[in-house]
């Protein structure tokens, strides 16, 4: 080969290298320039700062950005669920855009191919817009419905931030090792990562990382790592974020001409069925029990397949047929047996489920060994 040939082919090779470099530049530059280092904080200091920063003047600062959610739970392949179906969130990667103006000003948009769904909250008004059905739904939150359902957690304003942090950590310490990483970066911003690692041996969770922005202490990312994998099994967080107040037109919505307009009151259904629901919940709660504690807890629920298959379709209007879904999940289950009896084991990266032949469903973020151990506890 002539020398000129080498020189010539050097050009496309160099071009490829430059392009490859540009694609990989983000991580590479971050690695070369050294991680951003924030002043060191203990977990307690960090939580106290976070609570202090987010409880003053109406919560989070105005911001906008793109949130990406990625899940690789190692689930058996699901039959095609509708794109808007919550089940589709269990696999693959999804992106939403978020505009946050104030506590009562929010827009969340989920762009899909030539479609978009929007949730716009402005003051007491909320709109849900779905371009694929050309429907705008006006949502009214029924007064009172919200208060009843509020969780009985201590309100941040009742306590000083330090106290909140102390209480949180006191409960957590027993089962969890907590540490803080101050060299991480999310969406180009230096963050503190609060790392919660379960102490229990049998847990499938390696650690949970919560990233708080180094400046505003807004949570920017949550990652759940499964044991034995370097990539997070579940991740939700900003890929791009700016802390500037978004334009006002993001929060105004007028149903376009020709669109179907519907009205819906959230909480109305709830109130009607409340007694029934409460009874049902009590019923289930009476039968369910928890074996083990902390991260190694396994929930045991009485369960039969026939019930699920007959009950479920009524509740579900769109998306995949739940019967088919259950069938496909069960197909991937491995039959297991032991002194406790026999059943079918479904394994994913984070959660193990055991369906025993005597009609119990055991679910926990634990290894199969732990779950069969729990099955032995009557």
């Amino acid at each position, binding site marked *: 080969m002539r020398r000129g040939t080498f020189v*010539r082919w050097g*050009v496309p090779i160099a071009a490829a290298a430059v392009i490859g470099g540009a694609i990989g530049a983000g991580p590479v530059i971050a690695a070369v320039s050294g991680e951003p280092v924030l002043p060191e904080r203990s977990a307690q200091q960090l939580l106290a700062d976070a609570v202090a920063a987010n409880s003053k003047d109406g919560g989070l600062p105005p911001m906008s950005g793109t949130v990406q959610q990625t899940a690789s739970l190692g689930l058996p392949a699901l039959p095609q669920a509708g794109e808007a179906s919550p089940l589709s969130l269990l696999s693959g990667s999804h992106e939403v855009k978020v505009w946050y103006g104030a506590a009562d000003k929010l827009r969340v948009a989920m762009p899909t191919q*030539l*479609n978009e769904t929007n949730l716009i909250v402005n003051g007491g008004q909320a709109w849900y817009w779905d*371009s694929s059905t050309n429907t705008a739904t006006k949502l009214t939150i029924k007064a009172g419905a919200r208060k009843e359902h509020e969780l009985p957690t201590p309100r941040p304003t009742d306590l000083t931030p330090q106290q909140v942090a102390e209480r949180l950590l006191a409960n957590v310490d027993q089962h969890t090792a907590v540490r803080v990483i101050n060299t991480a970066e999310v969406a180009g911003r230096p963050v503190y990562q609060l790392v919660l690692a379960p102490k229990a041996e049998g847990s499938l969770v390696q650690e949970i990382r919560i990233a708080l922005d180094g400046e505003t202490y807004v949570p920017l990312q949550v990652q759940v790592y499964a044991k034995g994998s370097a990539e997070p099994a579940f991740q939700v967080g900003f890929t791009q974020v700016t802390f500037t107040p978004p334009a006002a*037109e993001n929060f105004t919505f007028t149903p376009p001409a020709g669109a179907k307009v519907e009205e819906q009151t959230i909480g109305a259904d709830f109130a009607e069925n409340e007694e029934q629901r409460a009874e049902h919940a009590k019923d289930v709660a009476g039968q369910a029990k928890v074996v083990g504690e902390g991260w190694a807890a396994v929930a045991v629920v009485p369960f039969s397949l026939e019930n699920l298959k007959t009950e479920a379709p009524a509740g579900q209007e769109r998306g995949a047929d739940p019967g088919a879904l259950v069938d496909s999940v069960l197909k991937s289950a491995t039959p297991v047996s032991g002194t406790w009896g026999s059943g079918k084991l479904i394994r994913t990266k984070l959660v193990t489920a055991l369906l025993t032949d005597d009609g119990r469903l055991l679910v926990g973020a634990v290894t199969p060994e732990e779950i069969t151990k729990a099955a032995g506890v009557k």
Partner: protein
Amino acid sequence: MSTAEKADTRAATGDPEAGTDAARRTPGLVPVAETMRTTERHPPEPSGAVPAGAGRPWAFWRLLGSELGLTFRRPRNLVMLAVLGAVPVIIGIALRVVASDGQMGGMIQDVAGNSLMLTFVSFSFLVLLLMPVAVSVVAGDSIAGEAGAGTLRYLLAAPAGRTRLLLVKYLNAVVFAYAVTAVVALSALLTGLILFPAGPVTLLSGTTVSVADGLLRILITVGYVGAAMAALAAIALALSTFTEVSIGAIAATLVLVIVCQVLRAIPELGSITPYLLPTRFTNFDAVLRSPIDTGALREGLLAFGAYIVLFGSIAWARFSGKDITS
């Protein structure tokens, strides 16, 4: 089109110039009879003779002009443009018929409610396969077609240089790519205006913008889709330098496009889809959001630029060192 036809076309454009031929020829390089063909590539000058070497920068544009003339006079290219122009009309009529039935889905409703939406719907159908076919036929034929017909060496006999010839061939394909995009847009716009009511445009985000804003967004779409097709043309051009059978380069480009579409459909390969060119083709729907998703458009254009640089340099490396045997 056969070789003979090609030669005829060139002869027709070059005949008036034949007399001035002797003044321009580089002596001793090629036989006179063959030089005729090369010089014939220059369009006839109204003033008659051009002094040899007088307009070197002009030579480039003259070559490009003559290439464009050939491209847009070739019956098969015109047929492709006509077919692409007809598709939005068919889509429009079909949607019109469906819409009058009263059963309206989301997209049909969008188009039925506004004439400008037909443009975006037409693009979303055509950009996946039909437009890539048209562009790769022209770009894939550019070098391989000349080599196959035995006209490449005559082209190179002119003092133009291989790099310049390659650039002319690529620009020719880019202009054709934009022509394809413009034909689709105009045809869809006219069909839409005739069949559906005009008025403020409802975007995917549910906000409504004025007609002028809608037209501006169509213009941005044309620019974006044209750039997408230009990136595909770079791949076709690169493949075209590796073969003397133009149909090989055309088929290879289309196979690449289809393989990419198949790979995109496999959810397990989600991590590589952002790097595949066709993934970016349909991202023009960013203009239909409010605010316009400039991030998606910028990413798409950067990807197109990367493809053009990479495959352009491959084409150059191959073509500038190629032994021209035909």
